[in-house]
């Protein structure tokens, strides 16, 4: 099956119905239908019942709901009228680094966090032009900029209990009063001197603020923490390496597969004491199933990238965890990339869905991993229902459903002194942090992702505290087909792509699906695009001042109209060449991403503007 799928993904025909949309607006990217005849009722997949939220027109956390669906129930903007979408207002933030955050809408207020210095802007939507109500500056340490591997981004804030809560680059979690803009509490949870930074958006579950650290490239030791929503006090910390006691592995820990079972694997699977600097941070997305009372997230890559310096499985890096939100206790874990060879973090989002599976309903989470496989895991047990490639993969052959093991391709194993060529997907994976959306109306997942391969060579690296700990020279290049980005509509029931749109650059922005059957995403050239959720046909696009790598959201304004908002401002790992002014002659710059992005500076300048669109 995977062979067939790989064939489909290679776009070489294979008898598939591959056609391009009629020549539309100039510059329109080809859009390819991979599987015809989507049933009118959708695929049958639904957002996990307990994790849905009634559509209240707000957008209080980046992923919209606990299931991380990024689906807006608003349906004023439809496939037929989206072409009339116009900017309602814009706001230049003054911060010219990668803007990855999702605007948060609570009542009549909108909140936006910028990249470092992590300013928080609050806009009153009820005022004409949505005037700025206040700005909060957490004043993060300037030196933290030197510890963030891949641009000084921030992925947004969450709202709960009257507070806007987010993490600053210098490891402070701050809670700001949503009305006044005054700091309510501030907790320092990490140390920039150890290379730790924070870029993730917290998830607030009940009275826990869940945060994790970044720094898999700096020799940090990864963790996730549960903070008290009221006080900010750290209630629990689960490390991602080390003995079971600190990983919070206890008697209720029941991994599905034998390979993840055993005691103190977080120590035994590392040489010497390298687990203390072994990476495995947590800087991506967390989902929550209230019915099972479990949070789901993946840990990041082990450090250093050079795998020869850390023989062993390197648990619990690049691992998917289910934990209790109150205590952090681990319930199950599934290591997707044991002894990760290519910086395949496991931090990508998981969307909680209920799908028909062999005649019955099954509660699953769908997780597009960096390694190029779309994993469907049973939420309760961690069993892999399927793991199908969604991009061209050369680094591995398949995932065994029986043992859960990833069958690596031995010819792509990095060895010191040698270059491994054409490793696909590249280090940012088939998909990086940019979150997917799911529409219950079509039953499809909309996955923004990239199509990159790389050549890599491990080099000996020293752990020197506060300096990067990578040990890999990388030069990336476009994957098969020559385009560097895709938006893929994925049928979570069959585990197959339905259609896909090629983009010249990686699609580094999140996706948004709405009840009007429109899917929004942004491109690194600066286009904000709307496509038909069923067919992928392009419907509308708007050119912003800079490349878009943010997360679009939809909300109902105080005036009752539906709005769509997104941050424009290129940067992040993929856009570091522009945001950091890097030299395109060095293809290893920005951990090798520059090799694939040499032409980006000709296409987009830096930016940092909030765009809000509505129908006129």
């Amino acid at each position: 099956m995977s062979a067939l799928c790989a064939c489909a993904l290679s776009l070489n025909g294979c008898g598939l119905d591959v056609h391009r949309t009629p020549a539309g607006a100039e510059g329109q990217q080809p859009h390819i239908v991979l599987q015809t005849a989507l049933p009118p009722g959708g695929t049958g997949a639904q957002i996990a019942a307990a994790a849905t939220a009634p559509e209240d027109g707000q957008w209080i956390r980046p992923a919209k709901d606990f299931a991380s669906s990024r689906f807006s129930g608003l349906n004023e903007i439809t496939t037929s009228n989206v072409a009339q979408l116009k900017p309602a207002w814009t706001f230049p933030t003054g911060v010219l680094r990668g803007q990855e955050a999702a605007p948060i809408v609570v009542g009549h207020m909108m909140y936006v966090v910028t990249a470092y210095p992590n300013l928080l802007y609050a806009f009153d939507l009820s005022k004409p032009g949505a005037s700025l109500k206040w700005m909060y500056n957490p004043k993060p340490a300037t030196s933290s900029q030197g510890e963030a591997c891949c641009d000084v981004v921030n992925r947004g804030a969450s709202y709960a209990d009257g507070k806007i809560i987010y993490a600053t680059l210098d490891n402070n979690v701050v809670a700001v009063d949503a009305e006044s803009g005054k700091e309510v509490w501030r907790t320092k949870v990490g140390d920039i001197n150890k290379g730790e930074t924070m870029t993730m958006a917290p998830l607030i579950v009940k009275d826990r603020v869940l945060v994790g650290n970044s720094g898999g490239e700096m020799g940090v030791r990864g963790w996730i923490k549960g903070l008290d929503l009221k006080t900010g006090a750290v209630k629990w910390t689960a490390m991602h390496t080390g003995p079971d006691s600190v990983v919070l592995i206890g008697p209720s820990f029941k991994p599905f597969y034998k390979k993840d079972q055993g005691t103190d694997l977080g120590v035994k699977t590392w040489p010497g004491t390298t687990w203390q600097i072994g990476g495995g941070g947590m800087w991506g997305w967390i989902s929550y199933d209230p019915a099972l009372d479990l949070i789901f997230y993946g840990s990041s890559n082990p450090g250093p990238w050079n795998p020869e310096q850390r023989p062993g499985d390197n648990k619990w890096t690049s691992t998917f965890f289910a934990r209790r939100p109150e205590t952090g206790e681990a319930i199950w874990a599934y290591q997707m990339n044991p002894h990760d060879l290519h910086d395949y973090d496991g931090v990508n989002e998981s969307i909680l869905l209920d799908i028909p599976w062999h005649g019955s309903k099954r509660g699953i989470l769908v997780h597009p991993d960096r390694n190029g496989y779309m994993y469907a895991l049973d939420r309760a047990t961690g069993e892999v229902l399927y793991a199908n490639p969604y991009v061209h993969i050369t680094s591995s052959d398949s995932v065994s459903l029986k043992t859960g093991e990833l069958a690596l391709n031995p010819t792509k194993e990095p060895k010191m002194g040698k270059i491994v060529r054409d490793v696909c997907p590249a280090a940012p994976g088939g998909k990086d942090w940019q979150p997917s959306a799911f529409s219950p109306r079509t039953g499809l997942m909309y996955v923004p992702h990239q199509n990159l391969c790389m050549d890599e060579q491990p080099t000996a690296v020293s752990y020197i505290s506060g300096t990067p700990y990578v040990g890999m020279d990388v030069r990336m290049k476009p994957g098969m087909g020559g385009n560097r980005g895709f938006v893929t509509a994925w049928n979570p029931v069959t585990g197959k792509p339905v259609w896909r749109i090629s983009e010249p650059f990686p699609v580094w922005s999140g996706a948004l699906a709405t009840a009007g059957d429109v899917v929004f995403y942004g491109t690194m050239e600066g286009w904000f695009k709307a496509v038909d959720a069923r067919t992928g046909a392009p419907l509308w696009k708007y050119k912003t001042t800079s490349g878009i790598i943010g997360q679009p959201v939809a909300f109902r304004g105080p005036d009752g109209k539906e709005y769509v908002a997104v941050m424009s401002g290129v940067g992040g790992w993929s856009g570091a060449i522009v945001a950091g002014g890097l030299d395109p002659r060095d293809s290893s710059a920005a951990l090798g991403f520059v090799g694939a992005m040499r032409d980006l500076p000709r296409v987009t300048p830096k930016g940092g503007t909030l765009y809000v669109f509505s129908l006129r």
Partner: protein
Amino acid sequence: MTAPPLVIGETVPVDVGAEREQMERVWGSKRGLWGWITTTNHKEIGKRYITTAFIFFLLGGIEAAMMRAQLSRPENSLIGPDKYNQIFTMHGTTMMFLFAVPIMEALGLYFVPLMVGTRNVAFPRLNAFGYWLFLIGGSFLYVQFFLNTGPDVGWFAYVPLSGPAFGPGKRADTWAQTITFTEIVAIVGAIELIVTVFKQRAVGMSLNRIPIFVWAMLVTAFMIMFAMPAVATASMYLALDRLVGTHFFNPAEGGDVLLWQHMFWFFGHPEVYIIFLPATGLVSTMLPAFTRRPVFGYPAMVLALISVAFMAFGLWVHHMFATGIPQLAASFFTATSTMIAIPTGVQIFCWLATIWSGRPRFATPMLFIMGFIFLFVIGGVTGVMIASVPFDLQVHDTFFIVAHFHYVLVGGAVFPLFGAFYYWFPKVTGRMLSERIGKWNFWLFFIGMNMTFFPMHWLGFYGMPRRVYTYLASTGWGPLNLLSSIGALVIASSVITFLVNVVVSLRGGAVAGDNPWDADTLEWATTSPPPPYNFLHLPVVQGRSALWDEGDERQVTVGTSTERREVLLTTPLDAQPDSRESHPHDSVWPLAMALAIGVLFITAIFTPLALPIGGALALIAFAGWAWPTSQDVESEKSDEKISLEGA
């Protein structure tokens, strides 16, 4: 102007003084500096070659002495690693590329035309060009050495140590370019020798009558033609890696560090025989004069030379056993390395038979020949030992190997060479070297040689690797090293003795006649030193020992032009007259060309602009070289194919 008819087999006609004067006018070079730089006479150039190479030998010897001084005691701080590495690299490079190969070729270029009875080498301007390029290349290396840019990566320049990442600066570039220089020079010399031997032999000198030294030079020249391109290519790859950034030897980008070793040793092992075969030729040519009989087993000797030459190309991998060559492949190279001992053994047996059945005269050259057998057999048997893979794994890259190849190269090539100096000095200068000092020279050399190198066998077993600038006292290597260093002093005193002998004999040595040793080869048929035209009348050969087999009367060829430079070409196999051909005049263009090429090579390590600039200069020089003068045009009109009936 019509040429007089050619008469072959005349007995020696009356020696006409006017004819000598006329020939002197035609073949002689201009007087003064201009004549000196434009000359294309093979003897002039050969002399310069020999002298220059010998100066490089002295420089290499001084380097050796410095190394021995540093190693005389443990933890010596006389020379630091930086200088030491340069010195041993210079020693190896000098001895191999600037001394051993050039001096053998130089002897060939001087004596082969005399021994085959012709007036000059085949392409005299090319010959001059070769010498100038050699001088420029060798001087370049030494200028760089004195500027602290001497190579420090070993004469074998293994990558990656000599590559761009680990060999900063211009030191390894200097080495690579010196190699390019010397390879071109060697190939130029080889071309000269091959064509001269094949086309310019005296009438009657059929292939089976060629003196063994000439055979040895011919075989060596062919070996050079096949071996040198390998190292020239390798050094070019190295230069490209270092200067342009190619990846021939970068394992990360698909290059290979072993590629260098294969290319280098594909040249490097034949190189040993390129040095050794001419030396055996020297021995075989000198031996008759001192045993009063032709060398025993001429056909066996020639076949041995040829088979050694072939086999020499099949054993390069025995330098690389420690790199982890698969057992089966290594066994092949062990077998060939062992096998080459058979033809070498045959040569030794033939010499023994010659000595045994002759009437030895123990003049200095004979002492050197016997010293050669004494030492070379030691080097030979250790050579058979190190052909064994397991044994080699212990002694490879240790002082055992240093001992082995010094026995082979000093014993096997330098001793015959010193013998040759004593033997041919009278021919070249007209005066004999002192026999008394010569004996001192020999015994000091012989004793010093054994004192220096014999202990090294043991040092190798005791674990002393090569190319170390010092060693710890606790290793216990001190006493043997001290002994070895004292031996080096003895060798140095021997070489000084030789220099004294040269100086003293040049001034007041006994005047040599045409043939002081009563030898049998053709060079002794002319005056000492020979005139610019070599022979007033070209000789005719009637047997293998030209001067002993000439019957009652010496026969000559009469009728070659006395009006212009003309050489007689003969057929390759039987040496029957083929044609008479005009011969180029002296020219400054070879020097100009060498300068242009020198500029090209030297500046190429600093700037890519060297290619267009040096290329343009070389083009100009080439145009000047090839531009026909009226003299040339006139001469070529009288080139004539000889019909054998007329002879």
